C-alpha cells in the first residue's frame, strides 16, 4: 500500500488534524466577539469531516498503514455519529459557556482533539493505535474538565478522573503486554489468527484478558470500576459532562468490539462470563443508586452505569444480533444523553445551574414544549414504548434470550422496572408539581430547534427503528466476516 492509498482511507482524520491546527492558530487572531468565527469554523470542520467520511467510503474492509488502520462500514457509521454528537454538544453548550466565560478557542480545539482520539480508536486494528487513540481522547477530556480553574469541584473531578484514568490505562497496557507475550503480535487480525491456529500460551492469554477487561470496564464505567463516574459527571462543567457522556461511548463500543470480538473471539467463553457479572452488577447498582440522587447530573451518571450494563449484555451474548443490538444501544444512548444534558444547559442561565431535581418542578407551566421534550427523553431512558429506548432494551434482551441466558434477561428487566421509577419521577415533578420559580427560560433559537430535533428524533426512531437497526446489523456483520 502506498502513501496515497493510506491517506485516502484516513482522509477524515488528516483533514480534522489539519483543521484543528488551523483553528488553534486562527483563534489567536480573533479577539473577543470573534469567538463566533472559531465556533463556525469548528462546525464547518465537522461538516467537512462527514463529507470526507462519506466520500471515501469503500465497500468491504480496507486495512492500511501496515495493518494499523481499518476502514469498514462500522467505523464510518460510528465516526459520522461521533461528528453529530460533538456538533450537537457545541450547539447546546454555546450559550452556557459564553455566560460563564469558558467559551474559548482552547475548549473547542480540545473537543476536536478528543474527537480525533475517538476516530483513531474507532478505526484501530492494532493495540498500539487503540491505546494511543484512547490516550488522545482521555488527555483532552482531563484538560477540558479542569478548564474551569476557579471551581474547586471541577478541579477535584479532573484530579479524580485523571488518576483513575491513568490507573485504567495501566491495567489495559499490562493486559495488552500479556496478550502480546502470549500470541507474539499486537495486530488484531494476527492475534485472532494465532489463537485460531493454536500458536499461543493460553495461561498468559487469559491472564492478560482479565486485565484488558478490567481496563475496558474502567473506561466504560461498569461496576465494580464505576466509582469515578458520579463524581466526574457531577463535578465537571455540564458541557464537559455532556462530551464525556456522549460520543466517547461510541468509541468505547468500537474499542470493546475490536479487542474482545475481533481479536479475542475464541476466548468468548471466558470474557462473556466476566461481562455477565459486570453487566448485572452495573444494571443493579446503577438503577438502585440513581433513586437516591437529588442532583440530576448525578442521577444521569448512575443511569449511565446502568445503560453500560445493558450495552455489555448485548456484547456478551456473542452473536451478530447481540453485537448489532449493542451498537444500536450505544447510538440511542448517545442521542438520549445529548438531549438530557442539553436540557440542563437550556434551563441554566447566568449564575444559576439547573442541576437539582427540584429545578424541574412545574416545568410544564413554564414551558410546555420543553417539558414535553424532557418527557420524551425520560420515557426513552426508562424504556417506555414507543420511544427508541424501549426498542434498544428490547433488542438487547432479545439477543440475550436467544442465547439462552434467561436469568440475565429476567434480572435486567426487573431492574429496568426499578429504573423507571426515577425517570418517571422527573416527569411527575414537571407535570404535577408547582414551580419553585417563575423566571422565564431564555434560550437561543438554534438550541430550542435542536432539542426539538433531539426529542422528536427519539420518538421517530422508536416508531421506525428499522433503518438504524439494519445499518447497525450490516456494519457489524461486514466488519466481522470480511477480514
Amino acid at each position, binding site marked *: 500500500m502506498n502513501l496515497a492509498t*493510506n491517506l485516502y482511507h484516513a482522509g477524515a482524520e488528516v483533514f480534522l488534524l489539519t483543521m484543528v491546527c488551523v483553528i488553534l492558530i486562527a483563534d489567536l487572531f480573533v479577539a473577543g466577539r470573534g469567538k463566533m468565527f472559531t465556533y463556525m469554523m469548528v462546525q464547518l470542520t465537522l461538516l467537512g469531516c462527514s463529507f470526507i467520511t462519506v466520500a471515501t467510503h469503500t465497500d468491504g474492509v480496507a486495512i492500511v498503514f501496515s495493518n494499523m488502520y481499518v476502514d469498514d462500514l462500522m467505523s464510518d457509521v460510528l465516526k459520522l455519529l461521533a461528528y453529530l454528537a460533538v456538533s450537537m454538544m457545541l450547539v447546546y453548550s454555546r450559550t452556557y459557556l459564553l455566560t460563564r466565560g469558558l467559551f474559548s478557542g482552547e475548549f473547542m480545539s480540545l473537543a476536536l482533539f478528543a474527537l480525533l482520539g475517538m476516530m483513531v480508536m474507532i478505526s484501530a486494528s492494532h493495540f498500539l*493505535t487503540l491505546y494511543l487513540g484512547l490516550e488522545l481522547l482521555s488527555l483532552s477530556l482531563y484538560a477540558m474538565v479542569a478548564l474551569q480553574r476557579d471551581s474547586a469541584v471541577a478541579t477535584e473531578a479532573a484530579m479524580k478522573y485523571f488518576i483513575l484514568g491513568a490507573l485504567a490505562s495501566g491495567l489495559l497496557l499490562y493486559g495488552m503486554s500479556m496478550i502480546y507475550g502470549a500470541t507474539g503480535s499486537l495486530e488484531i487480525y494476527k492475534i485472532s489468527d494465532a489463537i485460531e491456529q493454536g500458536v499461543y500460551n493460553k495461561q498468559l492469554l487469559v*491472564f492478560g484478558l482479565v486485565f484488558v477487561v478490567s481496563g475496558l470496564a474502567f473506561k466504560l464505567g461498569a461496576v465494580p470500576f464505576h466509582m469515578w463516574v458520579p463524581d466526574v459527571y457531577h463535578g465537571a462543567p455540564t458541557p464537559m459532562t455532556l462530551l464525556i457522556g456522549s460520543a466517547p461511548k461510541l468509541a468505547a463500543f468500537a474499542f470493546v468490539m475490536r479487542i474482545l470480538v475481533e481479536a479475542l473471539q475464541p476466548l468468548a467463553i471466558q470474557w462473556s462470563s466476566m461481562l455477565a457479572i459486570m453487566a448485572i452488577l452495573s444494571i443493579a447498582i446503577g438503577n438502585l443508586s440513581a433513586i437516591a440522587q437529588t442532583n440530576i447530573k448525578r442521577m444521569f451518571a448512575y443511569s449511565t452505569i446502568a445503560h453500560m450494563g445493558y450495552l455489555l449484555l448485548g456484547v456478551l451474548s456473542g452473536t451478530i444480533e447481540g453485537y448489532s443490538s449493542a451498537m444500536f444501544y450505544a447510538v440511542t444512548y448517545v442521542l438520549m444523553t445529548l438531549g438530557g444534558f442539553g436540557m440542563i444547559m437550556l434551563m441554566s442561565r447566568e449564575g444559576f445551574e439547573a442541576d437539582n431535581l427540584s429545578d424541574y418542578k412545574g416545568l410544564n407551566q413554564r414551558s410546555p414544549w420543553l417539558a414535553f421534550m424532557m418527557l420524551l427523553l425520560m420515557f426513552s431512558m426508562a424504556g417506555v414504548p414507543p420511544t427508541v429506548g424501549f426498542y434498544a432494551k428490547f433488542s438487547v434482551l432479545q439477543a440475550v434470550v436467544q442465547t439462552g441466558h434467561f436469568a440475565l434477561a429476567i434480572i435486567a428487566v426487573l431492574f429496568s422496572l426499578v429504573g423507571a421509577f426515577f425517570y418517571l419521577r422527573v416527569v411527575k415533578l414537571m407535570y404535577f408539581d408547582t414551580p419553585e420559580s417563575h423566571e422565564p427560560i431564555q434560550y437561543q433559537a438554534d438550541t430550542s430547534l435542536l432539542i426539538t430535533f433531539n426529542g422528536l428524533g427519539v420518538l421517530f426512531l422508536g416508531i421506525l427503528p428499522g433503518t438504524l437497526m439494519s445499518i447497525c446489523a450490516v456494519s457489524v456483520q461486514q466488519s466481522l466476516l470480511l477480514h
Partner: protein
Amino acid sequence: MNVESLVFYVFAALMIFAGLRVITARNPVHSAMFLVLAFCSASGIWMLLEAEFLSITLVLVYVGAVMVLFLFVVMMLDINLDQLREGFWRWFPFGAALALVMVGEMVYVLGNRKTAATEGLVRHAADYSNIKELGRLIYTDYVYPFEIAAVVLLVAMVAAIALTLRRRIGVKSQNPGKQVLVKKADRLRIVPVAAEKSGSDRAA
C-alpha cells in the same frame, strides 16, 4: 549461570530495590534520586538486550532532563510528608490484604505450571545498527502511531497552556516594544516660558 544472566539479575534486583525505595523513602528528594537509580538499572537491562540507542536515550532524556526538572520541582515545593501520610496505617491492613489476594491469585494462575522455556534471542551481526532500524520503522511501518503520538504531545502542550495561562487584569508591566517605538513628541513637551522681568517682582 553465565555472566550475562548474572548481570541481568544484578540490574533487576537493583531496579526492584530502587523502585521500592521510591515509594518508601521519607524524603521526596531521596525518592527522586532512587527513581534515577531505577532508570539507570533499566537502561542497563536494555543494554543487555542490545538496544543501545534506547538505553542511552533513557539515560539522556529521563535521567538527564526529566529527573533534573523533577528534582528542581520537588526541592522548590515544601511538601509536608506527615500530612500526606496521615491515615496510611489506618488503611494499610485493608490495602495489604487486597494486594496479598491479588498477588496470590496471580501466582496461582501463572506460577504452578511450567511455562515452556523461550528460545534464546537471535543475536544480530556486529555491524547491525539499532538507530537505523528504529528510524526506518518509525517513518515507514509505524508512521501512523508516530504521528498520533506527536498529536498527543501537542494536546499536552495546548492543555498545559490553557490550564496555566492567566491573563491578569490590572497588573503593571512594561511593554518593551512600545517603549522602543516612543517618539520624542510623545514624551517631551516644550513649554514656552516667558523670560523673567526683574528681581524686584519676585520679592513681592
